[in-house]
């Protein structure tokens, strides 16, 4: 029995793994900063326990576990800090991931100005092209998806999706 297994059956090919030493260091620093931050939280007047107690306990846990990771990491000797499989190293695919993240960021920045429908069309269209869907199919699907999302969320569920430069649609 190993319940951790199924995800790996599905995604065997991809890998971006950090060494235990690296992970241990990152979490150790996180634990120390959390502890330092918690010390400076104001106390409840007249009480020994307050807002700081719980994060301090978490910080202790973080530090303990990262020590354990550092121990295994150092015992394993000099592994590279990060292991990338060939697929992850391919510049095209890395650019794809960067583009995906940038597209979501651009939604956050521009949706108020440009409006939901154009932003949604741009994002879905770009994603289709990154994933090599045929352009004609991509354009049709992107427009349909944007209008459908607008219909479901703005018209039916009354979510105030920003209009931006687009006039209010008739429905």
């Amino acid at each position, binding site marked *: 029995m190993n*319940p951790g297994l199924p995800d790996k059956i599905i995604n065997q090919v991809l890998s971006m793994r950090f060494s235990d030493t690296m992970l241990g260091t990152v979490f150790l620093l996180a634990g120390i900063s959390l502890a330092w931050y918690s010390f400076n939280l104001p106390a409840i007047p007249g009480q020994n326990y307050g807002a700081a107690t719980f994060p301090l306990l978490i910080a202790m846990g973080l530090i303990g576990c990262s020590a354990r990771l550092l121990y295994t990491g150092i015992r394993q000797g000099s592994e590279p800090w990060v292991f990338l499989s060939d697929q992850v190293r391919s510049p095209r695919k890395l650019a794809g991931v960067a583009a995906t993240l940038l597209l979501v960021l651009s939604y956050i920045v521009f949706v108020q100005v440009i409006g939901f429908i154009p932003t949604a069309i741009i994002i879905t269209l770009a994603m289709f092209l990154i994933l090599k869907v045929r352009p004609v199919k991509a354009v049709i699907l992107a427009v349909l998806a944007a209008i459908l999302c607008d219909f479901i969320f703005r018209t039916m569920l009354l979510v105030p999706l920003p209009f931006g430069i687009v006039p209010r649609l008739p429905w």
Partner: protein
Amino acid sequence: MDVILQAFALVATGNVIVTIIAASMFGLFVGAVPGLTATMATALLVPLTFFMEPVAAVGAIVACSAMAIFAGDIPGALLRIPGTPASAAYVEDTYKLTQKGQAELGLGACVLFSALGGLFGTIVLIFAAPSLAEFAVKFSSPEYFWIALLGLTCAVFMGASSPAKGLLSLFIGLTIASVGLNNPAGVPRLTFGSTEMMAGIDFIPVMIGIFAISEVLRTVLSGGEGWQQAPEAVGNIFRDWGGMLRTYWKQLLRGNITGTAVGILPGAGSDVAAYVSYAISRRFSKTPEKYGTGHVEGVVEAGAANNASLSSAWVPALVFGIPGDTMTAIVIGVLYVKGMNPGPTLFIFNPQTIYAVFLIFILANLIMIPLGWALIKFSKNILRVSKAVLMPLILIFCIVGAFASNNAVYGVTIMLIFGVVGYLMEENDFPIAPCVLGIVIGPILEKNLITTLIKSQGNLLDFINRPIAFAIFAIFCLLWLSIIVSWIRAPRRTDEMLRAEPD
């Protein structure tokens, strides 16, 4: 009786029925597409439930999750790619059956025993939850503290290949839960001057990020390539039902009980139920050598177990507000939004809504049979949909869903951050469940810890000097003892697994 009639009236409205059927079809589709998990289906559904009546909202989630867990069996049987992790335990058997030309036997078993398992779990839920709630009314802060801690311990050690990573995942979740004003002193904690973060980190965008955006990123990295095999046609799935029920009723019963028990354990979900139950089935089978070669016995038992666990996971969720798995963690978020705050009082003040939810459980497991049959008939077409087409649509749906959670782009930002975090965590073998449960249980744990500490003026004995608290504490100690014993017995196993991994 009056309450049950009221519950019927709540369920038997066109609105609720249509919602349940639509959510079922959505769950079947998402579950049947490999790589999209049942939890992801639930997380994507949540933004839509904000705008529904409470019963319809909870019903949609019940139906969607039950269908997705069952539908995960279909690509497993036809393509050897489990649709959800919960189907991975017996994928060898169902796939080999398909290769032998007996796809209808394997899939028939999946449909029938998923539904029966789900119904059994529901019956346990119906009887166990209200009586447990009567008992839980007597609980005070130390009891809740120990139950929360027990749940988190199970979550960490049931799924992790490395305990340190499981614990770190939990601590990430607890830290996220600590953000905001909602703490004993009411001071802004970890908000870094942001007004939006004062309300804490919104749970729904976090779920969408961890379960959906991370999958989008993974698809982009793999270039959108997917499965290109064409599945075969499936015959009459009902043909072998009578024979299987006669031969395997014992396995069915055992699978039901195992699944229900694992489901009630806080922190262990349907994938764990399927693995445990498959292992038990093999251990007690007269023909253990046939397992993994296209033998339906293990499928019966584990298929029943994963659906049974799904229903019984609601027991701790409804009674204590402690989720049994990642899906009920999401459910708890929805219950709070809908004003049905989980806890024993839910059964006192709102019994008709709870009974309505129980009715929906029964209904969902019954319509699983016709809808499952239809899905198997259409599976050829569904499995041809490529990930390259699906993922951009999922991405835009995620963005709108995260936006809808509080009508601001703040939700989208959170979703993006946690998409990256979730991706990195999975790549590095950090289990996701402890983090998710940490976010949900964290506030309960902190509140009851601090309350008890302040009540007792720091006297730690007050944590165990009430009888129920002491009993839960004893179970907690036994659990830790068994974990430590298993560490001493097999100290090298995880190290070897880690070393073998990079190839």
